[in-house]
């Protein structure tokens, strides 16, 4: 029964090996998807290239359907899947800061490592920026600690929050994704005609 780690099929040390292998695969998929290129990533924010949205939504839908059916068949205990606590306001603020950094630098933390590993200079500079940001965050953490831990909603999930069955949420998210794909395809045509982008 999955998740294997929670059922002690292997220990902490070996879990790091597995994480490493999955990490390599993840990085490879990102790079092959074109996510090592800041122009493609940043274009998302100007709506000229919706690849980020498409890839992310595909990943979400694939994982969601996989988890749902695995749990239904009985291969997976959903209640053991780790879900981090939701700190509503701090996470909204954090998301905003990350978005600003993403738009300016053209990378999110993961893709900057993908980019740097293929030797792109902007990726390497971006990683230095991340390290500097971590340092600053560490230094000011005592000042923002109360805020950091505020509005804790605990283990928040959509089915709980909306009071809907899991299957209903799965279906709605699939509909949302298909709608987003259709909209993205149409939007790309319109936006690239207008030529808003400076990339």
């Amino acid at each position, binding site marked *: 029964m999955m998740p294997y*780690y*929670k*059922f*002690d099929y292997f220990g*902490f040390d070996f879990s790091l090996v597995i994480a490493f292998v999955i990490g390599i695969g993840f990085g490879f998929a990102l790079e092959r998807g074109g996510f090592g290129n800041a122009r493609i990533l940043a274009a998302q924010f100007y709506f000229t290239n919706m690849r980020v949205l498409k890839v992310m939504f*595909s990943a979400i*839908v694939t994982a969601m*359907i996989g988890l*749902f*059916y695995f*749990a*239904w068949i*009985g291969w997976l*205990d*959903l*209640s*053991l899947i*780790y879900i*981090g606590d939701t700190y509503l306001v701090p996470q909204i603020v954090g998301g905003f800061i990350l978005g600003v950094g993403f738009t300016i630098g053209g990378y999110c933390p993961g893709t900057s490592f993908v980019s740097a590993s293929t030797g792109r200079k902007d990726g390497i500079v971006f990683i230095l920026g991340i390290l500097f940001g971590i340092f600053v965050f560490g230094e000011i953490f005592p000042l923002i600690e109360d805020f950091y831990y505020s509005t804790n909603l*605990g*283990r928040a999930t959509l089915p709980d929050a909306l009071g809907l*069955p*899991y*299957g*209903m949420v*799965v*279906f709605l*998210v*699939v*509909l949302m*994704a*298909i709608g987003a*794909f259709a909209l993205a395809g149409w939007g790309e045509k319109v936006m690239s005609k207008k030529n808003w982008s400076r990339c």
Partner: protein
Amino acid sequence: MKNLFEKLTIAQKLALVAFVLGFIALLIGNPNNSNKITINAKELSLSTIKDHDKINVMTLADWIIKEKGDYTLVDLRSEKEFNEYNIPTSINIPIESLLNSDLMRNQKIIVYGIDDVTSAQAWFILKSANYKAVYILNGGLNAWKNEILFPKLDVNATEEQKAEFEKVKQISLHFGGSPQIISGGTATVVNQEIKAPTTPKISAPVSTGKPAAKKKKEGC
């Protein structure tokens, strides 16, 4: 129809698959109902006979002092009772909300109520809901009070008993209790600094801060 399907691009085909799977999911509803439980009766009865599922208050006190963090201590009483007094490091999950709690199935869980009855019920609920390691604090909070907070020594105790009591006394003082010596029906508090009456109203000791730490750190 077949011709129509072949005309679609790969992306459209995948979208169609996702749509069909999503629609079936809609019909399935919830993948696993957490209220439905399965019981292996034999396994359950075996584990009760072996007495492996009980933990003594002394052992627990020792763990708390040593700050062992590999277990979660769960107080099954109501929130009001929990706020009046609770064993340090415990978290409050009233028995009725046990199955909706954040407890993980692979966690080591120690449950306690006022006595053994609630803990036994909770133990059964958790065990049958497939929680792997559930333990009962033997005697519950009553045993904690009698043996840890207010241990008693008879005046006519043997040397052995006295030596044993000395150890208990230290543990008791650590948890803010008051060990007593009983002579002819009246109890005398051993430690004069704590001016507690014979069976004093227990006050909550200063919380040691965070509840028992989660065993495995995760996140991205």
